């Protein structure tokens, strides 16, 4: 696990994502709420096992009602991912529920939760576990949205989030 995490962190950081790790859900929640406050604007938290386990923390600007309208005005979107791939720094999510897609496509900052026991070595190992027949919309996310379409200059944040903040939490349900 430590080896997988170290490689994941290195690769995700190289892809311009930010990686934070917490030893329990309470610490992660505190960090997330602090970040939401610091960023200002609206935040939307999509349904996920993490919330089911910890309950929904209350904070001004933070909402759990994920709609198209709300997502199009949200500065921050929060969702939980299903797997993390060590060799590319990638997060994998069964995003069939549209709320999961709304918070991670339209917001400026995507906060992605991932359980510390959800790390896999590589793409091959996740493809073995995925059943596309049961998951209609799978998302693999590696870093924030990017383009190099003008003069080959790398620019972060085009149509998707300009920041991807990855929160690795120990002892939390998948």
């Amino acid at each position: 696990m430590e080896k997988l995490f170290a490689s994941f962190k290195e690769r995700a950081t190289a892809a311009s994502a930010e990686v934070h790790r917490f030893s329990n859900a309470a610490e992660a929640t505190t960090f997330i709420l602090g970040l939401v406050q610091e960023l200002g604007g609206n935040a939307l938290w999509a349904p996920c096992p993490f919330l089911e386990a910890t309950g929904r923390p209350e904070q001004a600007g933070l909402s759990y009602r994920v709609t198209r309208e709300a997502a199009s005005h949200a500065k921050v979107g929060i969702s939980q991912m299903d797997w993390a791939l060590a060799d590319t720094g990638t997060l994998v999510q069964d995003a069939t529920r549209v709320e999961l897609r709304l918070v991670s496509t339209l917001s400026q900052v995507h906060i992605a939760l991932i359980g510390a026991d959800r790390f896999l070595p590589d793409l091959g190992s996740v493809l073995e576990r995925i059943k596309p027949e049961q998951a209609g919309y799978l998302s693999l996310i590696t870093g924030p949205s990017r383009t190099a379409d003008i003069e080959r200059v790398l620019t972060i944040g085009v149509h998707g989030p300009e920041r991807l903040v990855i929160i690795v939490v120990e002892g939390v349900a998948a």
Partner: protein
Amino acid sequence: MTTTFKESIQEALANPNLRGALGRFSEAYRLSRAKAYEGMDFEAVRDSVKDVKAYGAAHLEELAETFKRNAESKGAKVFRTSSPAEVKAYILALCQERGVKTLVKSKSMASEEIHLNKHLEAEGIEVYETDLGEWIIQLAHQTPSHMVMPAIHMTKEEVTEIFNTKVEDGQMPDIPKLVKFARGKLRGRFLDADLGISGANIAVAETGSLVIVTNEGNARLVTTLPNIHVAIVGIEKLVAGFKDIQPILTALPRNATGQLLTSYVTIITGQTPNTDGSPKELHIILMDNKRSEMAADPKFKEALQCIRCASCLNVCPVFRLVGGHVFGKVYTGGIGTILTAWFDELKKADDIQGLCIQCGACKDVCPGRIDIPDLILELRRRLILEKGQPIVQKAIFAVVNNRRLFHSMLRAASVAQKPFARAGFIRHLPLFLSDLTDFRSLPAIAEKPFRDTFKAIKQPECKEKAAIYAGCLIDFSYPEMGEAVVKVLNKAGIQVLFPEGQTCCGAPARYNGAYETAAGNARDNIQALLEEEVDYVVSACPTCTVALKEDFINTFESLGVTDAMEGARALAAKTLDFSTLVKKLVDEGRLEFQDAAEAEVVTYHDSCHLKRTLGADQPPREMLRKAGYEIKEMAECDICCGMAGSYSLKLPELSAPILQRKLNNIKDTGARGVAMDCPGCVMQIRGGLDKLGSAIKVEHTAVRLARRLK
């Protein structure tokens, strides 16, 4: 070549922004690609990609039916058609039935291929490209110049101008701000659109899944926000099993942009929920458009192994000079030449296939293991079958195919050139020939060809014998190279023979699509070189070596010639390039070089055929070091020098800047000499340096080694 085509090349060459941007990109690309594959076995990766894609190409019909069944069981509607017109009609009818007024698109080369936007816009539907590069060229009414980076030919100033005139005034040429502006403007389009169109990078038959690879995140919005999704998929995107996506997702981002994985990979299987909770209407169009015909062609089925990474563009020394628009409107570069010939028509590829310099750089990096240069030669051959050999070429090859006439003409030329030749060089030619000596001097034809000077070298009687194959350049311009080869081999106790019946290796004919002439040359040479029992056939010209070792066989195979095949194989088995043979002799302890008091610093230029076809880039370096040379590597040592046989005669405007870059790289090393194993490269590079008045000494490895024998 048509005049308009030549003009389009001139126009591209005159665009400094284009050359600057592409030149910088191609340099950065080599490094980032190499880094992305660090710790991986690229050969193994591409073997897997090739297997998966070749299987798909061989089972198109079966996979298409399986895909349709599985996608439809998940609620998708799958429409199969071979006709681009039917694709357009289907989408238009759908738009009209559903009252679609605006639609958003993520990048789809298949839709570019059929010019979909124009068709829909003519019917009053608003179409918005959302990939930044695609949006820019849509606004500018241009076509993509690169499969992955459609607007790579434009500067930020040009983009600003387009935004200011077509979208909203007041933008400044600041890239992050331009990107933000695009985000803001397109966000409303995503939210308002009634329908989203995407392509797909992979379609999985086993599960009916679509795999879409993007960096910007636009495909996720296109497939999430509008209630209808139409995916246009070329049937060559089909793979059999879900696990087959792994090698493609491993190679595609690494080869396309030097990324380990793109920011987003989206895998869609069947209907998914819309934002209002309804199930999304999903239409998947499996478009054939000649792909089945390609799959049935024994040569061109290989082109279906393409995963559209565009690495063949990124490493192409010609693409980086002229960009994509010279190649055409949709698919560009090496693979684009082939796809245009099929998806459009063979005739359309007539001019652009001539751009290929046959250096093989693309073949080296292709993740689908497609032999792009070979397929382009095959196009050349078929074009000539269709329209016949150009009259001038026909006349030339008639001469080349008649050994005695050819050789006596070359001898006559050594006399005829007298007014132009000085000290072994021709620096100026008059009239229309002046293009040839504009950027480099040409070698004068030697007074005595190698076949004559060879007779003066007394041969020892040895048990081991080698036949030397000189090739035209060594025979008639650079006999000293042939003499050096003989000296080295004699020293190692090998008796050298010069079979008099040898003639042109046929490469010029083959590379111009004149396979019958090439086959005639092959027959003559096989007979001449196998006449006496020898242990080796050695050549100091890599292009000739490749002809003897591989192309005679390939040409016979293409033409269905069987009677001469045994001879071709026997010859191939005996043939070696000079440096590889020398290394063998040194390794066996039969050759030694003098100890050098002080190493002479040289740089080494890799000849295309020696490095990429024969894979012999190390033996000459190793031998030069043993002989007391220190090698100071130049940048891009293995990029073509621009000679490429008759290429430099047909397209001097491209050959010259390619050479210029090579000369700069040589000069930058500070070395006082440059070594190489190909007389053609010597001709080009020596001629270029002579024109510049440079003192850098250009010599064949054989000449350098012969001087240092113990």
